[in-house]
């Protein structure tokens, strides 16, 4: 792989850009891999990358039904933060956030990480108390967050209306080192690095069955033939239930559509990320100038990748009250992603009832921010056969044992 650099740009400029390589190979499937990962989204690719980088396992296939990064990795609102209440969550999300800081250099691929700061607005008395509690918890966890006053909010974000009649801004939880990144680039950067290590990314290849013998996984049947494997990682977000069904177990997960929308591009008017959990909306401005707006999740199981219209209405109604400036913006696109929700709104990184099979799912509405940390923890578990420190709390057994990592209360709804 030729490295990307300022020198490479100069070199290619002099020869009419004829020397750029493809970022990743499109190989034929081999008969056997040491590790097969199902799902070439951010989490699957990150798992493969850290398997190679941290544990030296490179005979790996990443199998993808569609195209890489075409699911929720390309459908989220790109927010990165780690201001969680529970220790287990804070640890893994902070690991992810800190890996994001140097990911561009690590992958030699510009993921455009922008630590512009994330503020979560407190718009009720309960939220003030909740966020102050989170601030104290974060301090103990070594994560820098501050509860800031309405005046400080206004200073950071001049377009905000503080005294809306229904949703006044009473303060905010501010994480200055949170931010955004270019979501597609995260998938592409990992894919390029994985391909460079000799891993095979098999796109347009659907897993149709999981083969097992004496309680151990032996391989997967795909639309491109049978592939045998020593270890299997299932990293397919909303469709985890289907893969678990093939492997012969059930998950504490329900899939719903979560939607987002973007406006037409406008001049820079906000340089922070804002989340408002009371009204269930969040907004940031992309580098292109579009306002990226996250909306609500559907209240019923579905796999439609579009979402209910009334959520858009609710989100936009609340937004124009808090940000009157956006009231005449035209919306360019709206889309939905299928998120895998667990009862405690925390993910599952776990061994499964099938031997040598591991699952990483349940990130629900908060998957993008956790990609590097999730891949790191999943790779560690797959390499060693047992979950490491980061993944230990997120096992499937926590439901049976009542040992929840309850972020549904801590994080509210937007997550």
């Amino acid at each position, binding site marked *: 792989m030729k490295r990307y650099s300022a020198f490479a740009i100069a070199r290619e400029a002099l020869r009419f850009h004829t020397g750029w390589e493809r970022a990743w190979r499109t190989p034929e499937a081999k008969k056997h891999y040491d590790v097969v990962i199902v799902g070439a989204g951010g989490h699957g690719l990150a798992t493969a990358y850290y398997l190679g980088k941290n544990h030296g396992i490179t005979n790996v296939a990443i199998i993808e039904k569609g195209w890489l990064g075409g699911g929720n990795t390309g459908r989220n609102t790109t927010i990165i933060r780690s201001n969680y209440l529970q220790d287990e969550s804070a640890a893994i999300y902070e690991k992810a956030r800190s890996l994001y800081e140097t990911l561009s250099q690590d992958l030699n691929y510009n993921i455009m990480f922008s630590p512009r700061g994330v503020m979560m607005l407190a718009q009720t008395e309960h939220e003030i108390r909740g966020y102050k509690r989170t601030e104290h918890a974060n301090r103990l966890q070594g994560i820098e967050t501050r509860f800031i006053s309405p005046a400080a909010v206004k200073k950071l974000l001049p377009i905000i209306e503080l005294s809306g009649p229904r949703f006044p801004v009473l303060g905010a939880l501010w994480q200055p080192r949170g931010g955004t990144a270019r979501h597609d680039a995260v998938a592409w950067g990992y894919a390029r690095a994985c391909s460079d290590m000799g891993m095979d990314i098999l796109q347009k290849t659907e897993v149709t069955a999981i083969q097992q013998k004496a309680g151990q996984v032996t391989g997967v049947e795909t639309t491109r033939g049978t592939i045998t494997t020593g270890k299997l990682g299932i990293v397919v977000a909303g*469709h985890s*239930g*289907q893969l678990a069904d093939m492997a012969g177990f*059930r*998950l*504490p*997960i*329900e*899939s719903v559509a979560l939607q987002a929308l973007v406006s037409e591009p406008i001049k820079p008017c906000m340089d922070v990320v804002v989340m408002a959990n009371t009204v269930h909306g969040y907004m940031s401005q992309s580098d292109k100038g579009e306002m990226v707006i996250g909306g609500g999740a559907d*209240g*019923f*199981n*579905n*796999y*439609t990748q579009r979402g*209910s*219209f*009334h959520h858009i209405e609710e989100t936009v109604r609340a937004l124009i009250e808090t940000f009157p400036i956006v009231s005449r913006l035209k919306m360019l696109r709206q889309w939905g992603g299928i998120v895998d929700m667990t*009862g405690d709104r925390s993910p599952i990184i776990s061994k499964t009832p099938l031997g040598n099979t591991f699952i990483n799912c349940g990130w629900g509405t908060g998957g993008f921010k956790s990609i590097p940390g999730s891949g790191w923890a999943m790779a560690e578990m797959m390499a060693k056969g047992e979950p490491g420190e980061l993944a230990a709390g997120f096992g499937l057994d926590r*439901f*049976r044992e009542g040992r929840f990592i309850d972020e549904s209360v801590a994080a509210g709804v937007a997550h």
Partner: protein
Amino acid sequence: MLILTCPYCGINADETDLHGDGEAHIPRQGAGAAEDDFEAYLFHKKNPRGVHFERWRHVFGCGKWFHAARDTMTLEVFGTYKAQTFEPPKALINKIKKKRLDWEGYMK
């Protein structure tokens, strides 16, 4: 917009009048149940990509619980029925079988 007909008051209610509450017809497990059964009862979901039987409540209407059969891929509604039953009506099952030839039945 998802629209379900409330089997009690006959109103075509859209989803903002309703509250969905997930999978229906989960056999109840009591205090004497085995651990695996109780865990499955509390947490494990079918979460199918296709035909789904589920519980709904007509919250901004008559307030009563009812059941619906719906396709989670297409949002097609096969029918709704009252909640005082342990399994879906035979007629509804036959109707779904005709429309979804590869459907393995609600017990799967």
